[in-house]
Every structure is written in structure tokens, then in C-alpha cells.
């Protein structure tokens, strides 16, 4: 079980990792199939070095996992952090929905009490 602080850090890393079109494109490709770093970099008009930096950010967010097969590095997409982002967003929605429903109910209660007087 991760501490709340570690959970926060991972959420930060995930949101940062997602906040870039190149990294989202990398994730889209890896979601279709695992790939070697060199093969993955091919369709991109930027250097292998830049792609490596993007991959590092995705690994830090635990969105991409790297395994070594001989001299090859194979990358794989891991969807779990996306689930955590979805949960976080859903919690914010619930907070405000429940809060506003409670305020609504409170005001209706007050109006009813007023009418009864």
C-alpha cells in the first residue's frame, strides 16, 4: 500500500507524462503492441535521444515498463496509472455533486420550515 504522499507523487508524474502530444502518441502506439525503443522512435520526426527522454517520463509515471531481451529494450504500456487519474477526477466530481445536493436539500428544508410557520 502506497503512502498518500507517494500516491500524490505518482499522480503528479502521470499527469505530467500525459500533458504532451508526443508522449500520448507513444502511449497510443504501445497500447496496440509492445515495441523496441528503436522501432517505436521511427515514425517520429525527432531524435532518438528526444524519444528516450519522453520514454523516461512515461516510465517514471509507471505508464511504460521496460524489459531487456539481450541488447534490445522492449517497451510495454501499463494502464494502471490511468485508472488512478480517472479515480481522482471522479472523486472531485463526487465531492461537488454531493456538496451541492446537500446544500440544495438544506435550503429546501429551510423553505419548508418557513412555509409551515
Amino acid at each position, binding site marked *: 500500500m502506497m503512502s498518500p504522499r507517494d500516491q500524490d507523487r505518482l499522480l503528479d508524474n502521470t499527469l505530467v507524462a500525459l500533458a504532451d502530444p508526443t508522449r500520448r502518441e507513444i502511449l497510443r502506439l504501445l497500447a496496440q503492441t509492445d515495441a523496441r525503443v528503436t522501432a517505436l522512435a521511427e515514425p517520429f520526426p525527432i531524435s532518438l535521444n528526444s524519444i528516450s527522454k519522453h520514454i523516461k517520463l512515461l516510465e517514471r509515471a509507471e505508464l511504460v515498463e521496460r524489459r531487456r531481451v539481450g541488447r534490445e529494450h522492449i517497451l510495454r504500456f501499463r494502464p494502471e496509472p490511468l485508472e488512478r487519474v480517472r479515480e481522482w477526477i471522479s*472523486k*472531485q466530481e*463526487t*465531492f*461537488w*455533486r*454531493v*456538496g*451541492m*445536493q*446537500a*446544500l*440544495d436539500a*438544506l*435550503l*429546501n428544508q*429551510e*423553505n419548508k420550515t418557513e412555509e409551515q410557520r
Partner: protein
Amino acid sequence: MDAKIDARVSHRFKATAEQVYDAWLDPERVRLWMAAALKSFGLAGDIQHIEIDARAGGKFRFSDMRDGTVARH
């Protein structure tokens, strides 16, 4: 990097706009609805302190108990 994020919440109230506006700025009513919202987070919703200074340039502050410590917002 532009760190500005626009977040919107909408809810249609049965009460009048005046009532909602007054309630929005009233610490005792804020305590009630916010406690319900905090409970939806799995928190105790034990709100300690609410301060609302509804003026241009004013401040709002509130705090609730979480695991025996005061969380200030």
C-alpha cells in the same frame, strides 16, 4: 508552462438565487454541505473552522480534522 486550469461546477437549485448566494457565504451552512462532501471522500467531515470574508480582496479559510491532525485549506 501555463498552469491555469478552468474547473466548473454546475448545479440547478430549487431554491432562489438569493438564498443560494446567502447560503454560499454563510459559514454555518457551508459547514453542513461541506461536511457531506468531505464524507463522500471517505473523510470524517469534522470541520473545525470556517472563515469567509466576502469582499473584493477578501479571504476564505477552512480546516477539518484528518487522522487526528488539522488540515487547513
